[in-house]
């Protein structure tokens, strides 16, 4: 079954004529994603990678019944792109763009929440329902269909872990990046709930990092889950008070620190891996 997206999801690419947009459109098409339209204002009528470009998302929805959108537009235009998608009735939005001004993100979230839209990102690698559809930018090669759901706050680290899983013959239902920014649309709990309900998902991998209290909140929910969860938290050796790339990765005064997260997860019954490759070991054990 997978969560949120599948082979029938009809995707419009916002910013399809840009360098990133066109490259990843090809990759998504290659993966089998049902890309039905692109949007670049003023470029209506063009074709990119065999996909028709429209001037507005509303037109893409009207003409091609798009129901999900992926946003590749530059940061200064991302808020408008998201608003446009919501206005046009898109129900799942993946915002790949990074460095979106923080206040813009707050407004996007406020608007998606009020309209019941699923917002993945910003600054996310996106989502892949293995073997069905990929919306975003992760490498196609790493995914294999199977019974594990993966949810994460970081990109490449997730590829590392998913790749480990696939190499060991452990496939995935859906892999999803929440996004690396300080505030993003979805939380671990939102996604864990979906995996808990998803018939095909038998175990879940949670890849967290220092900063914020998302992992601690997840731990509370995990206590009520029937499916096993394996965790990994990055940032064990990060010194307090330093930013480590992601706006989210700030440890201030112990709150949101590594130990707090690991302990919370362990108390909730999560097997927490110390190094990334252990995740696949633990999952393999669980699925035996």
């Amino acid at each position, binding site marked *: 079954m997978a969560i949120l997206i599948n082979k029938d999801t009809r995707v419009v690419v916002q910013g399809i004529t840009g360098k*990133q947009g066109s490259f990843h459109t090809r990759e998504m098409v290659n993966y089998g994603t049902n890309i039905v339209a692109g949007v670049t204002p003023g470029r209506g009528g063009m074709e990119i990678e065999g996909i028709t470009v429209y001037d507005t998302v509303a037109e893409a929805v009207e003409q091609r019944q798009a129901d999900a959108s992926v946003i590749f537009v530059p*940061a*200064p235009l991302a808020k408008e792109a998201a608003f446009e998608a919501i206005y046009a009735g898109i129900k799942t939005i993946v915002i790949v763009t*990074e*460095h*979106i*001004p*923080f*206040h*813009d993100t*707050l*407004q996007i*979230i*406020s608007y998606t*929440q009020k309209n019941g839209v699923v917002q993945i990102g910003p600054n996310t*690698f996106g989502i892949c329902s293995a073997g069905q559809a990929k919306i975003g*930018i*992760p*490498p196609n*090669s*790493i995914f294999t269909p199977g019974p594990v759901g993966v949810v*994460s*706050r*970081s*990109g*490449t*680290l*997730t*590829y*590392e872990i998913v*790749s480990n899983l696939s190499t060991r013959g452990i496939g995935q239902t859906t892999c999803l990046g929440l996004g*690396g920014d*300080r*505030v993003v649309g979805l939380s671990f709990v939102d996604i864990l709930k979906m995996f808990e309900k998803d018939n095909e998902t038998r175990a879940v991998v949670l*890849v967290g*990092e*220092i900063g*914020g*209290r*998302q992992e601690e*909140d997840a731990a509370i929910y995990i206590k009520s889950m029937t499916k096993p969860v394996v965790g*990994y938290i*990055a*940032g*064990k*050796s*990060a*010194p307090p008070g*330093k*930013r*480590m*790339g*992601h706006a*989210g*990765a700030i440890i201030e*005064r112990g709150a949101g620190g590594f130990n707090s997260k690991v302990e919370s997860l362990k108390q909730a019954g999560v097997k927490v891996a*110390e*190094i*990334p*490759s252990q995740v696949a070991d633990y999952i393999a054990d669980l699925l035996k």
Partner: protein
Amino acid sequence: MKLYEYLAKGIFRTEGIPLPEGGVAQTPEEALAIAKDIGYPVAIKSQVLAGGRGKAGGIAFANNEMEVINESARILGSELKGLRVGQVLIEEKLKIDKEYYVSITVDNFIKKPIILASSQGGVDIEDVSEEYIVKKVVDMEVGVYPYLGREIARKMGIKGELMNQFSSLVIKMYDLFRKYEAELVEINPLVRSGDKLIALDARLNVDDDALYRHQDLPRIVEGEEWEIKAKALGLSYVQLDGDIAVMANGAGITMATLDLLAIFGGKPANFLDAGGGAAVEPMAKALSLLNDTKPKVIFINIFGGITRCDDVARAIIEVRKSTDFSAPLVIRLTGTREEEAIQLLQENSLSAYKSMEEAARKAVALSKPSSGCSGGR
């Protein structure tokens, strides 16, 4: 980006927030001139981007010319929490009847702006007991109206005319928060001096990603030498105190790499995230920078996704052409265009690991005094 107190106060003043009279000085003579204008006693406040300046000796008071000269001379040029003091703010010393706290930031969980206020000001807000903290979430589509300020004032025990002053202050803070796309607008302490509320301190942290929309703001550069250099190259870099220089692609995997090195007994020298899709040129620059920091080992850990492994190999080879690597290189490459990369490296007498863990073990081994062998597998 954090603004110095005097810069934040300059902005607060244009918004109409009541402040002590004052001016900024770079020398004791300038400090004296300002103090003469204001009249005694005055406060002398070091302008550094750190909290707790008072406890650390960065704030002094002066009752006469001699004290202004002596204290400003002492503070100027001193080091405070590792930061050199280049400027002092000279301000009238107010009679303080009561100290409050008020700030606007964002609650990452609720994902909305939040106003925090307390009748227990002047101390670190984390040290204030929850029952004394008033929290009000702001709906950005509605904004902040006087009633919200009055409601906060009421819960802080502020009444009558002061309630209106407080309410007007909160509206101005929120206007600043939105106008400057701030991560934090803070006044601590906000003081009552007689029948007036005055912002004794001022903090304004602006979102780096929004700076392009705020050309009017000065650009404050913060951090240690290599951090400043890396920032100038557009890299996300954090100086650490070890000896294994690290470059990886993505914040999460970079942190995981540091953790792995630490677990295996190594000491990472830095955090350097080359980003998700860096091209040859930026990567080469990053690598040169790492080399310049003179580490014992350089560890490159790349999982190719958008980043192409062959680009990484090209960057390494390019740097090697113009510079001698001062330390052995440990390279881990896997993912997009892995084979092309390996071939390129081999053509240049380099090699790479496929496994992150194997590579990390090697890097740690190379960083130990006992091991003297050179880079590569």
